[in-house]
């Protein structure tokens, strides 16, 4: 091996502060973004399966001669499912996997903020999932002839963005909880998957649930977000809304703040605990 002088003595410039924060976010989102391009198998699981789920609901609705707008509902729900699955499987349990692979210790040791790491994961996941959701939507539109009539693109964009902030904020928060719980996390993810499909109205209007069940389900930001988005893309009066759009936007905003603050708080707690007990940074137990 050559021990060429120069290479070993060259200093590295380093930035700090908010620039470091941004670089960390970009750095950690990168594997998620290229993962999308390199792992071809996602196409089957993340596109085909949701489309299959969507189809079965569409056939049921058509069989019972439900209003055609319900088909649009289902397609939209199917697209948003992608985000839910991403948060559940790739955000919630992510810190746990980072611990198992030994990355968590390196992330804590580096001079960055762990919040930037989590944010990077979230943004990377969001970006990757966005493409899946779009593909599902387009397939739905083509196959089932869904017709969206957007009343306000601005509001739609606002609701969608806010829903994503709240949803991924929730994912960031749960990732610390899951890490503290260890292996149990996996079972919780499993348990959470199905009931949420039901309760958050992926495939039917939230309002068709008992009001209090719907209110409870609204903790999961997708429920409110979906309800608001549906109000914005389907004609008024075609289905019973849960709450008025501005109210839903307000609640989503509050949820966003709560989840993000919660994420920061729990992350700090997790780091303190890891350093005090010395077990969260290693995979042996």
């Amino acid at each position, binding site marked *: *091996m*050559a*021990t*060429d*002088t120069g*290479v*070993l*003595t*060259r*200093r*590295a*410039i*380093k*930035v*700090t502060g908010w*620039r*470091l924060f941004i*670089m*960390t976010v*970009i*750095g*950690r989102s*990168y*594997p998620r973004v*290229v*993962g999308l391009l*390199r*792992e071809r198998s996602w196409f089957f699981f993340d596109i085909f399966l949701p489309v299959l789920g969507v189809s079965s609901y569409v056939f049921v609705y058509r069989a019972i001669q439900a209003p055609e707008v319900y088909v649009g509902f289902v397609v939209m729900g199917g697209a948003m499912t992608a985000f839910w699955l991403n948060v559940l499987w790739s955000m919630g349990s992510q810190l746990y996997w980072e611990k198992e*692979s*030994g*990355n968590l*210790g*390196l*992330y*804590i*040791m*580096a*001079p*960055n903020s762990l919040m930037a*790491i989590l944010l990077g994961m979230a943004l990377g996941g969001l970006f990757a999932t966005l493409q899946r959701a779009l593909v599902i939507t387009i397939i739905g539109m083509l196959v089932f002839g869904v017709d969206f009539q957007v009343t306000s693109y601005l509001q739609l964009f606002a609701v969608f963005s806010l829903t994503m902030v709240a949803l991924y904020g929730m994912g960031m928060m749960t990732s610390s909880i899951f890490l503290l719980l260890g292996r149990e996390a996996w079972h919780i993810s499993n348990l959470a998957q199905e009931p949420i499909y039901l309760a958050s109205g992926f495939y039917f209007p939230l309002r068709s649930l008992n009001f209090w069940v719907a209110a409870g389900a609204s903790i999961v930001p997708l429920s409110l977000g979906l309800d608001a988005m549906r109000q914005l893309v389907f004609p008024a009066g075609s289905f019973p809304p849960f709450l008025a759009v501005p109210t839903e936007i307000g609640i989503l905003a509050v949820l966003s703040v709560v989840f993000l603050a919660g994420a920061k708080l729990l992350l700090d707690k997790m780091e303190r605990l*890891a*350093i*005090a*007990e*010395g077990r969260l*940074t290693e995979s042996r137990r």
Partner: protein
Amino acid sequence: MQQAIFTKKLSRIYKLRGGKKTEPKELIALKDVDLEVKQGELFGLLGPNGAGKTTLIKILTTLLAPSSGEAWVAGHNLSTDPDRVRPLINMVSGGESSGYGLLTVRENLWMFAQFYGIPSQVANQRIKDLLEVVGLGDRLNTKSSDLSTGLRQKMNIVRGFLTDPEVLFLDEPTLGLDVGASRDVRRFIRSWVDQNEGKTLLLTTHYMVEADELCDRVAIINNGQVLACDTPARLKRDLQKDAIFRMEVSPLNGAGAGVFERLSGVRKVTHEAKDGSSTLEFILAEEDALGAVVNTMTQQDIHILNLQKREPTLEDVFVSLTGKSMAEVEKSGD
């Protein structure tokens, strides 16, 4: 000269959970460790499995809080100022599986450089140069999941140097590497310290040769305590006047090595049984004591198959400090 690492009565106790009632609830992994590593030193921590090496490194890299005592790294107090220490250090552990398998070698390293605030252009140049030096220049675009253990380890080691740390920690850097790769890594480590005045490197190892040939100074650690700390030459010097013999003999058959330890002039004996023969190592206060040893063997009907006198090694230093070889300590442990 400034100290790069300084610890004062550093201790760490792990709480053990879930064991049986009769089992101890605590484990003392480090006990009152006082260590001083000068800036610019290549310092080695040598000790058997479970000695507390990794625990010490974790404390020094801000990943673990000490139960008591204090420590400073690169001039900053670890418990009050971890955020000042972190930009100045880095750590690599042997056999770690950090990064993401779907990323290429370059991408993985680039990602870690981002976490230290190194602009992409600078990072990519450094990655290219460093990979070249460790002989991984042609693997820039290999997916890291496709690397062999040894190549992977070299990539990890590059990660440590990439961020241009003031103090670098390497936990068993040559773990699992073949002879050639280990030699490459050692040479690389040595030249980094030699060429960078003021940069400090602390590594742990349980390979005697590594500590002996590579490190400026070595601390011998066992059971959470630092037993000795000096240059390899000076550690061995005390043993220089002793005579060290390595003997291969017919199986001891029940009679332990204890009979020899009682002979006058015999300081330490270690015993390792292989199939068909036993290997004994004697540290004798003077060469004349060998006569008594040989006599005892004849009485016990033990045949000498091979006898060698040799220079003291750090292994002998360990034996003379603990009464056991590192292998014996590792076997007797859990």
